């Protein structure tokens, strides 16, 4: 798979990741890693945050749509 954004710009590079939202192939330059904390459990026990955050890869468009940046 090739990087979709590089292809739009007329270039070509191998994709190293896929956007979790839209499925776009992304090279290292265009992939955005946005880790998320995961909480499990709840009533009647306090929620617990799992020790490590989960990695999540987004493309620039989805990142901007979700986080307004």
């Amino acid at each position: 798979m090739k990087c979709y954004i590089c292809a739009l710009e007329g270039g070509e590079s191998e994709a190293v990741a896929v956007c979790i939202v839209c499925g776009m192939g992304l090279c290292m330059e265009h992939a955005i890693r946005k880790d998320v904390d995961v909480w499990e459990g709840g009533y009647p026990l306090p929620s617990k945050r799992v020790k490590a955050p989960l990695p999540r890869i987004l493309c620039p468009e989805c990142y901007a749509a979700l986080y307004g940046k």
Partner: protein
Amino acid sequence: MTVSLGKRFIAEAVGTFILVFFGAGAAAVTLMLAAGTTPSTPFNIGIGALGGLGDWLAIGLAFGIAIAGSIYALGRISGCHINPAVTIALFATRRFAGRDVVPYIVAQLIGAAAASLLFAWAVGSDAVLVGGLGATAPFPGIGYLQAIVIEAVGTFLLMLVIMGSAVDERATPGFAGLAVGLAVAGIITTIGNLTGSSLNPARTFGPYLGDWLLGGQNLWEFFPIYIVGPIVGAVLAAFLYDYLAGE
């Protein structure tokens, strides 16, 4: 990693405050509304004079809705036990850390006491002298041991619902608050006119302290009923559920 103990302490205090202010407050208001009426039987102390068992259903719903709201608001933070019997039952079945038991119970007692004192201040002296701040006591004809057993059976059902609707990982998510609230409302409707249906040592502690400090009745002699009964009932239910649900 959980939320800090300090934040959980505050959440437990706030949750128990809501439970006592609205739940016990509803009982006090019902007594104030019924003041001056002539009870139809000696078994009737005022709650029930206006609408029979409907009075108890209304009080039960006040408790139940307040509890459901607290669970949805605070359940993820502290677990929203808002009841020492629930905290002890979860500890007894090794679900809750022993080092957190005393802080949780202290928070629950503080929240309950604050609720009763604020209710008395906001409503006025009749809340204490007529409404008794919604304190619980055995009703005419109900002995000390009978009251303990009734409180144990009521709390048994409450804890069984908590186990089945919330603790069990197979439970449908999101319904626990509603299920627990409705269970409390149902329990209070039936045993309210027997023991007051505390199901919760903290719920009884707040009004007892308020009445004692503000010139109301001294009811401390009955406090062991509302410690022993709920704790025994909750612990039995938790162990029974684990046995029934286990492989």
